């Protein structure tokens, strides 16, 4: 489709620059929802190219897979969630120190702790 996404990508980059400056100065983060913007796959690809890749890449599998990477600009993260059928569910730029989704969640930690403890208890009860 003959549609040049460049002007939108440029305006988006300016906005990201402003938000990143805010993060550097105040620690305040932000998120930009890319699927809510009329830039389409070509625009998102152009933006991804301009931002580049940085030092961290992560994959997670929770209710479908996710791809997360820090862009070439520290503090600017690209977070892409897929559903189980591998279709894109959300795509966001997060301006933060680390995306929350990467952190172990307290509720999951509590369940994991009791699961591990229960597993160990069962193991020690086994006849030698």
């Amino acid at each position, binding site marked *: *489709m*003959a*549609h*040049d996404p460049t*002007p*939108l990508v440029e*305006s*988006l980059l300016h*906005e990201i620059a402003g*938000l990143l400056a805010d993060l550097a100065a105040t620690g*305040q*983060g*932000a*998120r*930009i*929802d890319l*699927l*809510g*913007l*009329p830039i*389409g796959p070509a625009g998102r690809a152009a933006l991804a190219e301009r931002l580049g890749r940085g030092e961290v890449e992560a994959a*997670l599998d*929770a*209710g*479908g897979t*996710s791809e997360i990477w820090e862009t070439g600009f520290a503090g600017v993260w690209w977070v892409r*969630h897929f*559903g*189980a*059928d591998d*279709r*894109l*569910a*959300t795509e*966001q730029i*997060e*301006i*933060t*120190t*680390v*995306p*929350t*989704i990467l952190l*172990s*969640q*307290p*509720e*999951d930690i509590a*369940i994991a702790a009791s699961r591990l403890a229960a597993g160990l208890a069962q193991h020690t009860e086994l006849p030698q």
Partner: protein
Amino acid sequence: MMDPDSIGALLARRGVSRRALLKYSTRLAALMALPAGSAEALADGLARAKRQSVIWLSFQECTGCTESLTRSFNPTIENLIFNIISLDYHETLQAASGTAAEAARLAAMAANKGKYVVVVDGSVSTRDGGVYSTNAGHTNLEILRQTAADALAVISVGSCAAFGGIAHARPNPTGAEPVSAIITDKPLINIPGCPPLPEAMAATIAYLVSFGKIPELDHLRRPRSLFGDSIHDRCYRRPFYDRGLFARSFDDEGARQGWCLYELGCKGPVTYNACATLKWNGGVSFPIQSGHGCLGCSEPDFWDQGGFYRPLSSNTTSTGTVVAAAAVGGVALGAVSALVARRRARLARQETTP
């Protein structure tokens, strides 16, 4: 300690991690255009809440709205909605029928008196006492009044329930009316569309459950976050509109070049919905992307607006007044990015909790 009856506990028992819920909430928060830190609050609210009892009533409708919700594309993430609500009554989906179904509805109403949400799809026949649409010997009108009396809130799903829809089109032989014309004393949300976007339904219900309140609504009681922008505002063909480049038939050179469909009857400039960004079938496409103008299906009386293939500027409504429309080719370049920037600024300048 987690309440064993909470959604959080239910999800944990089903092996759904909090991280998966957070991921779902991220999507919902984006759909509802909530501030950046809200995904965490939404996940927290959902985890603490009890499943919302929902009684779903189907009146003069085609089942497209139910199809839309149940076939929402993303089996893992989107189906979480069915962990958030307890669908206590739904004529089309439930196994029971006839008297047994009626008993199920009355039992669900009694068990959750004052706490259940009524979802309606379809318009309500009111002519001659509503006899043109009945169920188990009761008119839709009777069933709606009876069920809504003890409801917490009512959600009209689809353009028929929200605005009367196709049954309400001239000459409206059944006296079809929207739910809002009948239920005037309950909080009411309209989620129009023919059918509505499944994400709009899921996000609205999740918001209600998580925050215990109704999202901000526009003058037609539609959630502002989902119906705040026109299709035209978000249309990827907009740069052609701005430059005055219009397809004049469905197979001319302009159509092949992807130019604006305004002159082929596109109602995007006066239609408020999220199709241009969320798209259909899991984000694959939407009518304009497939080469057809927007029909305006989420607006009142879209069926009677003078013809799907007539340009807005030549349309007349049933009363003969010209439909308000943007002037052809009259918008300066750069309007899209300005709008996008405004909207993004609203969304983005919020704190995240790292």
